[in-house]
């Protein structure tokens, strides 16, 4: 059944991931990228591709490892620990989850491209300042065999660097999901200076022509289809945020043990002890929720919404608490840019908005629980 403990395979995967990331993507690497005004790390992504991570959700028939969401969460959690910068979530989790739902040779080809590292994706959903896939105004007007897209997408994470974009648009037949190259004529990408030093963009669609072949699934099914990708992304982001929380917490407790004030280590102050213990409990509970989301996504993705929303709501709350406590317990040094804790705080804030904030996911939970 759906056991909420890690399998030996998952534990091995975790150890391998930790080794790769500690070596090639420690927080100091993010700092280097930031200082160089870079938001992509091609060498790291190539390493991830070589390790099979790009294809973690790609079927074996398309050259993937097909290990499932729980395994993807193991990787995401480890990436959260070191704040690794990569298109993993957008490409290997969200795009792959969508594409593999379609029995379509073009999707098979796209999946193969993902697994081989030849193509990265960004997911373009938001149009306002809040995640709301129910309110889509970007228009897809039928023209000949294809469509013309007009409108704007905001907060497209990885949108500045991705090779392809999945775009949710509104047509007179209902929501449509398109898969198009990011360099298509008429599509302008405005990259913003995101606080966590990663890539996000505003996409302007100025009469962008797409072919009928670039429509994924049937017209009108776009939102339902994308939902699988979004939920997979939300769960993976919850896993990443949990890793972030665990790392921030580990750094903080280490600091508590080392740091002396008034002649004793500050770890001996009971008020800090109890706050640290409380935070540990929060992280434990969130870890359970993420495990549950992974198991259900693997077993019955149509029934995963509740578990995914619990995981996402809990994880972003926990990650932000861990970062806040991290800065406060470090005192002044935690506020300096030279120390890593600020990077954790900024990444946690971005995760708190991306793919739905606490209020969005708590409302999903309330609705599914009958109130």
């Amino acid at each position, binding site marked *: 059944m759906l056991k*909420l403990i890690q399998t030996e395979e998952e534990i091995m995967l975790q150890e391998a991931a930790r080794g790769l990331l500690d070596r090639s993507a420690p927080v100091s690497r993010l700092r280097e990228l930031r200082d160089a005004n870079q938001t992509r790390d091609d060498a790291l992504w190539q390493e991830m591709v070589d390790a099979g991570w790009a294809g973690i959700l790609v079927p074996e028939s398309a050259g993937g490892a097909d290990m499932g969401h729980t395994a993807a969460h193991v990787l995401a959690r480890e990436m959260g620990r070191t704040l690794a910068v990569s298109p993993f979530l957008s490409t290997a989790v969200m795009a792959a989850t969508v594409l593999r739902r379609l029995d379509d040779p073009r999707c098979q080809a796209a999946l193969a491209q993902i697994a081989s590292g030849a193509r990265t994706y960004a997911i373009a959903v938001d149009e306002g300042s809040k995640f709301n896939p129910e309110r889509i105004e970007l228009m897809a007007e039928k023209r000949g065999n294809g469509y013309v897209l007009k409108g704007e997408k905001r907060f497209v994470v990885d949108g500045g660097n991705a090779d392809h974009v999945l775009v949710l648009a509104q047509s007179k037949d209902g929501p449509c999901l398109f898969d198009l190259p990011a360099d298509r004529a008429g599509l302008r990408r405005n990259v913003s200076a995101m606080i966590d030093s990663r890539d996000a963009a505003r996409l302007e669609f100025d009469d962008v022509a797409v072919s009928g072949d670039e429509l994924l699934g049937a017209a009108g099914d776009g939102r339902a289809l994308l939902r699988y990708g979004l939920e997979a992304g939300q769960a993976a982001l919850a896993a990443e945020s949990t890793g972030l929380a665990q790392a921030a917490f580990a750094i903080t407790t280490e600091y508590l043990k080392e740091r002396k004030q008034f002649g004793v280590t500050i770890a001996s102050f009971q008020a800090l*002890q109890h706050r640290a*213990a409380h935070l*540990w409990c929060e992280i434990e*509970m969130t870890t*359970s929720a993420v495990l549950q989301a992974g198991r259900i996504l693997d077993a019955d993705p149509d029934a995963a919404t509740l578990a995914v929303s619990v995981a996402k709501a809990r994880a972003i709350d926990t990650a932000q608490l861990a970062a806040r406590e991290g800065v406060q317990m470090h005192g002044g040094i935690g506020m300096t840019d030279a120390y890593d804790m600020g990077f954790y705080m900024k990444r946690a804030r971005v995760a708190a908005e991306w793919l739905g904030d606490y209020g969005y996911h708590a409302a999903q*939970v*309330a609705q599914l629980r009958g*109130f």
Partner: protein
Amino acid sequence: MTTSTQPEFADTPEFRKQIRAWLEENCPEDMRDGASGEGAICWGGKTWEFSSPAQKLWLDRCGAAGLTVPTWPRAYGGAGLSRAQDKILKEEIAELGARSPLDSFGIWMLGPALLKFGSEEQKQTYLPPIARGEIRWCQGYSEPGAGSDLAGVQSRAEDRGDHWLVNGQKIWTSYADKADWIFALLRTDRDAPKHKGISFILMDMSSKGVSTRPIRLISGASPFCETFFDDVEVPKSQVVGDVNRGWDVAKYLLTHEREMISAGGQTMGAGRALGAVLADAETGQSDPVLRADAMRTEVDALAMEMTLERYKDQAEGGQGVGDASAMLKYAGTELNKRRLELVMAAGGSDALDWDDGRAPSWLRTKANSIEGGTSEVMLSIISRRILGLPG
């Protein structure tokens, strides 16, 4: 000690079929309503008044089959089931809606302690009557003024050669007024360091010099009592484990108790009900404060449920819960307090009527984070034993 009628349960794939057949045959119709509240519990004991002939029949049959304590060895009144079999048994009981045949501190607390620390003679003497519901036990740990410092036991048992002479007072002894026997922590060496001079002693509550007085809580009448020992004579044989090493037994049982309370805290007012609570509330839709509190509580309740599930899975996978039981206790009881605060807020003035029933439940939850180790003690345990912080 096994009766001749006791069935043999095989540890084979056939077990589920076998146990289902046994339950179908033996569980009286009246005991199949799935009831589990206070009114449905059978506590057993010398003075127990059965609520119906079916309750007695169900206890007798389960007792004879060892199914009141399924995982205990057959020699001591159990059915000798493996952990996996026990899980199947519970599933089948749930499937049938069968009531628990017997609940008692003897089963939950003393039994595990005797199985681990008792002598062969003690096991033979005390376990089977627990299994058959003949003797009801209560626990005597806390003392007035000791609070979280359980090892600060002052009640003492003096060695009088052929017996212990017991004097002192216990508090929070649940159902002491209805119990036949008590297991208690008593100081047997006043000069030793406080953890080293305590013994775990069994006493007959009908002994001369034992008296009890019920405690009324802010939530109303309660099963808790104060229990007084005034020159009570106790046979020397009634010490469990070594003299002055009672703290080892106590510690073992405390971890055990924490796990039970945290699991229990969760089931009190089950998660499912919260949606209904808010849907019924007059301002459940219109008041963002009430609504946001409910949403947060629901999210956390679900995470708590998943956590209990995860720890159960870990336990079944052979990983003990260990000190993390402090987390379950802390998080579960704090959550339960929040839930009942929400129930009161949702209920508005209707819930302020004592007879409405919500207020006593709400007040009762305030003890959850005190009994069985306070939230503060739990946090300190986590800090010290899990996080490795000093103290």
